[in-house]
C-alpha cells in the first residue's frame, strides 16, 4: 500500500511539473492520470498493490470533495444578489448538458452499424 501510494504521488508530481513547466491549461493530477494510463498500457496492467490501493481510494472519492465543498460557506454571500439567475442557469445547463451528451452518444452508436441496441 505504501509503495502504491508513492507511485501515485510520483505520477502526480511528474504531472504537476510538466503542467507548470509547459504552462498547460490542465491540472497536474489530470496529466498524472494520463501518464499512469500510458504506463499501464505499456506494462499491460496495474500491479496488484496499485490496483487495491486505488480501489480503496476511489471507493470514497466523494469524501475527498467534502473539504472543498464546505468552502461554499465563505462565498455564499456572492451568490445572494443574483441567486435566481444563478440557480436557473445551473439547473437548466446541467440538465441540458446531460441530455445533449447522452443523446449525441446514442445517435453516434446507432449510426455506423445500424444496430439499434
Amino acid at each position, binding site marked *: 500500500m505504501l509503495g502504491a501510494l508513492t507511485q501515485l504521488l510520483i505520477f*502526480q508530481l511528474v504531472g504537476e511539473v510538466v503542467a507548470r513547466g509547459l504552462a498547460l491549461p490542465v491540472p497536474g493530477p489530470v496529466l498524472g492520470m494520463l501518464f499512469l494510463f500510458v504506463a499501464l498500457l505499456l506494462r499491460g496492467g496495474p500491479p496488484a498493490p496499485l490496483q487495491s490501493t486505488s480501489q480503496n481510494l476511489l471507493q470514497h472519492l466523494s469524501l475527498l470533495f467534502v473539504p*472543498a465543498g*464546505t468552502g461554499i460557506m465563505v462565498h455564499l454571500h456572492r451568490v445572494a444578489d443574483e441567486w435566481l439567475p444563478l440557480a436557473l442557469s445551473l439547473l437548466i445547463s446541467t440538465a441540458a448538458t446531460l441530455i445533449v451528451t447522452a443523446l449525441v452518444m446514442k445517435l453516434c452508436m446507432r449510426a455506423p452499424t445500424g444496430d439499434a441496441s
Partner: protein
Amino acid sequence: MTQDIGQIWVYLSASPLLGLTITLLAYQGAFWIYQRTGHNPLANPVLIAVAALVIFLSLTGTSYETYFAGAQFVHFLLGPATVALAIPLYTQFKRVRSMLLPVLAGLLAGSLTAIVSAVLVARLLGASSATQLSLAPKSVTTPIAMGIAERIGGIPSLTAVLVIVTGILGAVGARFVFDAMKVRDPAVRGFAIGIASHGIGTARAFQVNEQSGAFAALAMGMNGALTALLVPWLVAIL
C-alpha cells in the same frame, strides 16, 4: 466545569485534529444515510456532509480557514485519487476504444452545451457580465475552472461555488434525467455525468457501476482540457 470545556475547545479549535475528525464523521454519517436509502442520489453524501459541516462550523463560530487546516489532509488526497482514475480507465479501455466516435462527439456536444447554455440562461435572466463569465467554466473540475474564470475576467471564488453546486446537481439529478430518456448504457450514463458534473459526478458514477465511473473519469479529464480551450474563444463571440 464550563471553563474546562471552554479551555478544551480553545485547544481543539486551534489544532488540525478537529477539522479532520469532523470531516470524517460528517462523511461517514452522510454515507450511512446514503446507504440506508439504497444509494438514492437525492441523499448524496457530499451534499449531506457539506450541509452538516457548514451548520456545525456556523454554530460554533469556527472559521473555514481553521477548519481547513485539518480538512486539508483529506483534500490533499484528491490529487493521488485523480491519478488513480487511470486504473479503471485502463480496465475499460477496450470499451472506450470501441466507442471512440460517440465519445468524441459526446465530448464536443456536451462541452459546448455546458458553456453556452449556462452563459445564455444567465444573460437572459439579467445576470451581470462578471457573473456570466464566472458561470462559463462551471462544468469542469475546480482548479481548471478557477484558472479559466481568472483568465476571462470572471470571479474565481464565485466559480468555485458554482462548480461544486453543478457537481452536486448532476450527481443528484442525473439518474432521473437518464431514466426519463431511457438511457441505460452505463458507459453513456457515466460519460454524460462526467461531462456535466466533473469529479463529484464521477464519484457518484463509481458508486453505481465501475464502467460508469471509468467513463465519467475519462469525460472529466477530456472536458477539462477542451473547456480550457473553448471558453476564452466562446466568450469572445457570444
